[in-house]
């Protein structure tokens, strides 16, 4: 029964990875870039929540509701300034700029909050669980992560297939120049895509911080998990990203059941195996 527990916990963790990877997947799908500061932004969200919870009387759910719009606006602004400019400055520029941003964010966090490991006091929500039997209990926060991933991905799929702006997002992903001659500003459309990506990053970052402790240097390893989820699932497919996240979470959790020290390595090896034997990913698909 312990193995079953490991499988279920893996799916919950994988759901959170998928939610977190969604932003990376969207930004790649629409703009063909990898945001190397993705992991650090999630850590910024965690510290933002920590600061709000300790310094204000806002309850945690209110912090979540505040942080997500803040991140959306931040994402839009960052796209319209740094990222849009780097898209025009040569093929390496986006990578160099987001990598620079990653280093800057890490060290600003280090300077402001020190290297100490933190935990976010999430109250009864974080500690409660559904007890299925003696050995299996599913935490509310874990379930929340998985549900949030599925709801987010369904919502984004509906947005890109049903709405005027979502349709233009796919169009701009195909051909930004032609999108501009039908009246859309590619920079604005990209800004909206980045805003959505940042909203998911904030949500995922907050759930991460309710589940486990964090410190300013944890961003890059989170980025790698998100990246692996995207590649395992298949580039440009959000359902693929969900599946990739679940596969990664499952692998880490099951291996951890036998040897906790090998969990992360096992995840990396699954990623390399996908590269070797199924480089198109589990669900190869078109953009967004």
């Amino acid at each position, binding site marked *: 029964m312990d193995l079953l527990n490991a499988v279920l916990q893996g799916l919950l963790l994988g759901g959170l990875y998928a939610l977190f990877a969604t932003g990376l997947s969207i930004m790649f799908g629409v703009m063909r870039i990898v945001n190397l500061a993705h992991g650090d932004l999630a850590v910024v969200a965690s510290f933002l929540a920590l600061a709000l919870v300790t310094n204000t009387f806002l309850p945690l759910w209110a912090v979540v509701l505040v942080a997500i719009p803040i991140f959306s606006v931040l994402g839009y602004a960052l796209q319209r300034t740094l990222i849009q400019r780097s898209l025009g400055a040569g093929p390496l520029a986006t990578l160099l700029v987001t990598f620079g941003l990653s*280093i800057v964010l890490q*060290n600003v966090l280090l300077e402001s909050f020190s290297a100490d490991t933190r935990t976010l006091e999430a109250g009864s929500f974080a500690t409660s669980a559904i007890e299925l039997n003696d050995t299996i209990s599913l935490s509310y926060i874990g379930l929340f992560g998985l549900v949030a991933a599925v709801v987010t991905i369904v919502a984004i799929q509906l947005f890109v297939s049903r709405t005027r702006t979502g349709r233009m997002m796919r169009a701009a992903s195909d051909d930004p120049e032609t999108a501009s001659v039908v009246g859309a500003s590619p920079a604005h459309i990209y800004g909206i895509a980045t805003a959505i990506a940042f909203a998911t990053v904030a949500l995922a970052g907050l759930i991460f911080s309710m589940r486990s402790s964090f410190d300013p240097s944890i961003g890059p390893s989170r980025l790698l998990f998100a990246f692996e989820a995207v590649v395992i699932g298949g580039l440009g497919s959000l359902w693929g990203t969900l599946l990739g996240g679940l596969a990664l979470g499952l692998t880490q959790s099951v291996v951890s059941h036998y040897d906790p020290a090998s969990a992360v390595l096992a995840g990396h090896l699954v990623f390399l195996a996908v590269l070797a034997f199924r480089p198109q990913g589990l669900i190869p698909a078109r953009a967004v």
Partner: protein
Amino acid sequence: MSGVVVRRSARSSRFGAAGLIAVAAVLALLPFVAYESVTSSLVTLFVLVTIASMWNLLAGFGGLVSIGQQAFIGVGAYTVIYLADHGVSPFVAIPLAALTAAVLAVPTSLLAFRLRGDYFAVGMWVIAEVYRLLLSRVDALGGASGRSLEGMAGMDQTLRAAATYWAALAVTVVAVLGCYWLLRGRVGLALTAVRDDEIAARAAGVDVTRAKRIVFLASAAGCGAAGGVLVIDALSVQPNAIFSVQWSAYMIFIVVIGGIGYLEGPILGAIVFFALQELLSDAGTWYLIVLGLIAMASALFMPRGLWGQVIDRTGMRLFPVGYHLERHVGTGRA
């Protein structure tokens, strides 16, 4: 007849290779005249020039941006540790460290080359993490806490410092001249064609993947040698430090600031980086914040880096690897 002449080298470049060797000769004499603290900090500078040149070779000429070259730094460092355990002098082990890194680069490239562009960059990072996690599990090599280098205990302190310095200098000179030699040959030509138009280059029969793989192996070898120098300098290795992504950050910042795609870029960038490091050494993490901001600004507003500015102002090229046109005044058409 057109008055345009195609040239490889400008007048300044005749001083390039010769000048480098002359500078190296002068630097080689330094341990006899300078304090050990000077030569010791120059070792750091040499390592920075080496790894940045390797990253520049890969990204600036091969178009392969990697955030995982620390994989080969670590492999090189551990090769020296391992060989020293088996009685090989650490200094002799440096070329073998380069070789090991190049050999491991073959299977690495088979996996990593399945990813393109930005995804290659991050994929290499994952691969570097795999190397770190695997080596952390080898108890004979010190496991996760690392261990010290054998075989140096009997050596005189002053001699050891000088030998380390010479080794670092030699690795740097070989790395820079190696890049120059590689890029002036067929590989350089193929990569230039790819940079201009990859599809046309493939259609014209250029084996693009082969050229990129050669550059990838060469870059790995250089990083491996640099890792060997690092372990001899520090006398110990620790997996989290030697496989740290910080090395990639250094390489990228140096090359971006110095000028990507010019062999002079990493040298100039490393000197600037090193100076900033000395200047801001008391500032702690602010140093990296400033550096990150400079690199971001440089990538956006000065994509050809400092050396690009030097060329614009003076036309000087020390290590020309491309071709350039000169219009002869008087014979050219108006």
